[in-house]
């Protein structure tokens, strides 16, 4: 076992293609799927880029997801304990207490029941786009509102509050806004969800928040979990819809294939998840004891960053990994993570993506970019990768 022969690298962030991970990152994977990583705060840990090693770390309880180990590979973020209800930064059994409450809400069957509502919401956005007429920004009119309205439906946000909810969840995600404006929206939203939990507790309805409010969670925990559902369910899906549309418009042959063979949509969504890997700086874990991983010795206390984007392009698992092929079997991608923390809302996300892409493709056969591809700005340094705006015409 060696640990001294590798000079720590910074997490590579320079992309040469808007849809592919930085070449430096994938080159690293081919040479050393487990490498030393230099974190911005000075700590030295590990960077995992191979698919097998990524799965090994994410499914091994010796690698903890606790907030205390949270160390961003790019940008800021300080290791600190999870806030109440934010169970993605907890380990079992603490994590299990929360996760169990939510898994029942996102079963394959439950999300199928929500599908007609997703169809309706999407159709509403398509109708609004038609009414506005081209050109318009697809992010603002389609990618952002769909997941936001779906979350309203899921949580049980009253109809009269939808506009408030949408406005503030959008401001929270807008990286161009001043920080204090985003913080203000965050605070307003947290207060709104706390109040909603109290209301649901008094007068339960048939929705997720009512069931969470009726559980053994405290008000603060329930509101924290609701905030987590919003954070995890809005930006992610919105980024996939915006960047995914850009990807399709940049690959007309693939788009044509999907248009002619709509039955490919389920696999196409998996391939887009694999190809785009929008959690661009990966997932972080902390070793709770010494662990040997592919010949490297990871010491107790060291941080490990799992680069999902590089693992999802691992040629060992995906032949010709840099080719977009909407008809391939991409089922084993790690776009939703892996292990006990794998995205709890993934089945809902799949329904949203399938419905949204299917309706968009069939409603606008002439859909095209309204600017030169080079003018499309991406969120290069945000942990969730995507396009800021996507001006389209048809």
């Amino acid at each position, binding site marked *: 076992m060696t640990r001294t022969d590798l000079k720590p690298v910074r997490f590579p962030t320079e992309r040469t293609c808007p849809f592919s991970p930085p070449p430096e990152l994938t080159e690293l994977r081919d040479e050393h799927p487990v490498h030393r990583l230099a974190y911005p705060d000075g700590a030295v840990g590990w960077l995992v880029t191979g698919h097998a090693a990524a799965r090994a770390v994410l499914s091994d309880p010796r690698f903890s997801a606790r907030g205390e180990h949270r160390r961003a590979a790019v940008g800021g973020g300080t290791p600190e304990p999870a806030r109440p209800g934010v169970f993605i930064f907890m380990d079992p059994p603490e994590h299990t207490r929360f996760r169990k409450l939510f898994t*029942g809400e996102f*079963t394959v*069957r439950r999300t199928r029941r929500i599908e007609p509502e997703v169809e309706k919401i999407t159709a509403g956005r398509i109708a609004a786009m038609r009414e506005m007429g081209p050109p318009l920004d697809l992010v603002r009119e389609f990618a952002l509102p769909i997941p936001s309205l779906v979350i309203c439906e899921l949580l049980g946000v009253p109809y009269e509050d939808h506009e408030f909810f949408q406005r503030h969840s959008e401001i929270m995600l807008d990286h161009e806004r001043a920080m204090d404006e985003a913080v203000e929206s965050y605070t307003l939203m947290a207060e709104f969800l706390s109040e909603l939990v109290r209301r649901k507790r008094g007068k339960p309805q048939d929705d997720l928040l009512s069931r969470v409010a009726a559980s053994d969670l405290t008000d603060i925990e329930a509101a924290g979990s609701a905030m987590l559902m919003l954070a995890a369910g809005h930006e992610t899906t919105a980024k996939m819809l915006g960047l995914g549309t850009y990807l399709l418009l940049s690959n007309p042959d693939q788009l044509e294939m999907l248009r002619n063979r709509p039955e490919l949509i389920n696999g196409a969504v998996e391939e887009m998840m694999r190809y785009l890997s929008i959690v661009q700086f990966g997932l972080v874990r902390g070793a709770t004891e010494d662990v040997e991983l592919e010949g490297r010795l990871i010491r107790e206390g060291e941080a490990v960053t799992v680069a999902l984007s590089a693992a999802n392009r691992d040629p060992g698992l995906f032949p010709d990994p840099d080719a977009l092929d909407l008809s391939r079997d991409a089922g084993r991608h790690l776009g939703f993570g892996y*292990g006990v923390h794998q995205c709890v809302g993934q089945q809902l996300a799949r329904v949203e993506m399938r419905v949204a892409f299917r309706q968009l493709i069939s409603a606008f056969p002439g859909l095209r970019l309204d600017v030169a591809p080079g003018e499309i700005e991406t969120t290069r340094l945000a942990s969730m990768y995507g396009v800021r705006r996507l001006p389209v015409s048809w």
Partner: protein
Amino acid sequence: MRVDVDRTKCCGSGMCALTEPQVFDQSEQDGTVVLLCPHPLEELWDSVEECVRLCPSQAISLDGSALLTDRMP
């Protein structure tokens, strides 16, 4: 082939119920795996093996799984 599931390991991702609904379902209460058919027909073996590979918490195991291990990368 005999299929076994460990509900204490299951994290309710739903990958099995999505991939092979004839063999796996999810509990309405907590989303954990429900085994519908411990001895699936041979025509379902491939997709059951795919469920084993997809499961993020290794909650599904197969008996007589030499075939599976041979094919694992």
